């Protein structure tokens, strides 16, 4: 990228890293006007920017508030780009179904995971909050999903994650999907106990593990 497109691309990269939603929207629109392919915007700007954000977090320079603001800036850009995907035949790594489990209406962590997975080229179906096990299972069938991400913030609702896995088993879907269990009280031991596949300290680690499991590094 050179000239004005290069400048605008740098602006978008910075907007994502700084978590500036408005700047992100403006720069994304400008890049489209300048004729840039939405795929290139994602792969050459958004994904590297989100990776940079992940690196800053892992170094301890960024905390969750910065991550969330960057995710919001990323989401704002994606909203503008999404209508262009069909036209450009955007390839997706796999479909991931995300939701906060039944009885829990917290979505901060889930939203961050959605942004990170989208950034890495997954097609994410966001089921929202208070999602019953049946809805997770139905969404897996409907969207032919390979990944199920379930989030819980409270120790009492964390128990619901087991029910989601049981429901997937009951419908014969368990072996077809990679199951991620996330949320503040969730530990690696809990993930093993309920028979999920992936526990990441954070969304960045989770996406790395999932890509490895799918062989799409």
């Amino acid at each position: 990228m050179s000239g004005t497109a290069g400048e605008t691309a740098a602006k978008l990269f910075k907007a994502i890293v700084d978590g500036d939603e408005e700047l992100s929207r403006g720069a994304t629109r400008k890049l489209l006007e300048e004729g840039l392919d939405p795929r290139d915007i994602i792969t050459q700007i958004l994904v590297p920017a989100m990776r940079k954000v992940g690196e800053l977090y892992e170094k301890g320079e960024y905390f969750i508030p910065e991550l969330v603001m960057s995710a919001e800036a990323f989401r704002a850009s994606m909203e503008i780009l999404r209508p262009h995907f069909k036209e450009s035949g955007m390839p997706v790594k796999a479909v991931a179904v995300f939701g906060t489990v039944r009885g829990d209406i917290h979505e901060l962590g889930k939203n961050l995971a959605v942004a990170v997975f989208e950034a890495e080229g997954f097609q994410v179906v966001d089921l929202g909050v208070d999602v019953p096990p049946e809805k997770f299972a139905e969404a897996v069938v409907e969207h032919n999903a390979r990944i199920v991400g379930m989030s819980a913030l409270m120790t009492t609702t964390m128990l619901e994650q087991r029910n989601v896995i049981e429901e997937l088993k009951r419908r014969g879907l368990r072996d077809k999907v990679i199951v991620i269990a996330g949320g503040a009280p969730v530990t690696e031991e809990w993930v093993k106990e309920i028979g999920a596949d992936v526990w990441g300290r954070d969304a960045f680690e989770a996406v790395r593990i999932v890509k490895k499991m799918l062989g799409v590094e």
Partner: protein
Amino acid sequence: MPRPVLTLLSRDEVEEIHSKAISLLESVGIFFEDKEVEKFLLDNGLELKNGRVLFREDAVREALSKAPRKIPLYDRDGNLVSVLGEGKTIFNPGSAAIKILDFGSSEPRNPQLKDLKDLVVLVDALPGFKAQSTALVPSEVPNEVKDAERLYVVLKYSAKPIVTGAFTVENLPLMVDMLRAVREDYRARPFAIFDVCPTPPLNWSRVTSRNLVDLARLGVPAEIISMPGLGGTSPVTVYGAIVQHHAEVLSGITISQLVSPGAPVIYGGSPTQIHPYFGTAVITAPEAVLVTLAYRDIARHFSLPVHGYLGLSDAKAVDYQAGGEAAYTAVLAAVAGFDVASGPGMLEFESVQSLEKLVLDNEVCLMAERVARGFSVDAEALQVIREVVLEKKGNFLAHKHTRAKYREELHLPRVWDVSSRGKEKKPSLLHWAHEEAQRILREHKPPMLDGDRLALLDSVRKRLWERVGQSPPAI
């Protein structure tokens, strides 16, 4: 009698926070997942805007005027234990832990019914805990019966009052049936408090809102536990979290009083700091504690009994951090005059219980209680000093005043190392706490429920287990 006093907010500050909370309730309102509860509120004159119920100031004011100022709390057998609203702290174990940490282990495990029974027996014997709680969630019983099964164990093995809660809409009336089985006059002489939690920010889930309605209808004390998570589910500032917390609790009080004027409610809370790096909900963070101390002043302003999650720790082991966090929050609870303080025994963001920590927290709670008690004026002091200096060569131990007074004046911990360094190598305090817990479990004979009352309770439990098509296990 001189007593330590801890006040954070002035009257003007309380009124300012209250008016901001009212403004939130009137303009933003509360979202109800349960449409029946929403309809009930609309039928009672509240308005719906953008799918959220707006609470008018006059409706809140009327509810506050009807909520009881004092709630006498009894034990299982009908003896008065305390009057909530008088500021004498009742410490009880933190509730609903999904793990237990064994002595010598660094990995918490899933608790069984037997662990809950042991915990109840231990707490029954520890004088620092004036109440029990349904402290562990037994992993081997089906989800559909977990909440009520916990209550059964506590009612059977201890007479102390109970702090509990339901995980489902269906089981709450059955849990109240358990109370009725144990004592017909459970309403007139309450011995169980149920926690209900709004979901921050400014929402009530189906289960908790229905629980709150049912508790008001059945006349059982409800503890409204707002849970702002600073920086995650509430503003990151202490002030912002207090405003949100107060608005949520006010909505709960209004619901309960609309269902049944005079229904017993306790102003509670469990604020946390959502750690900006780890995303954990840190309950003993100074900012969370400041929110708790502030709402205590707000509750007192409205003459409401008050509860806090204090005397607990976010540590992963029974270590320095665990002791420090439990001790500093327990002392604040007692000195600030919380009526109910839940938390002892707990580790790791309200998810793990430990028998050893309960033994040590018992000591911490007794010390906190002692500090809060203050001291009385000793009219004999001058004369005693004169006599000891002039007649006893400065030896106060040789004066009868010392012997007569020391037991009531001095708090003497049992499992606490205050002896001089001896020749023998002492076990660690944690080891000592473990031995004490084991000794109590061997020797303590809890006041088990028996006769007709146990038969009635067993019949309610049988009904509970019929829901999952099983017979109740022996415990």
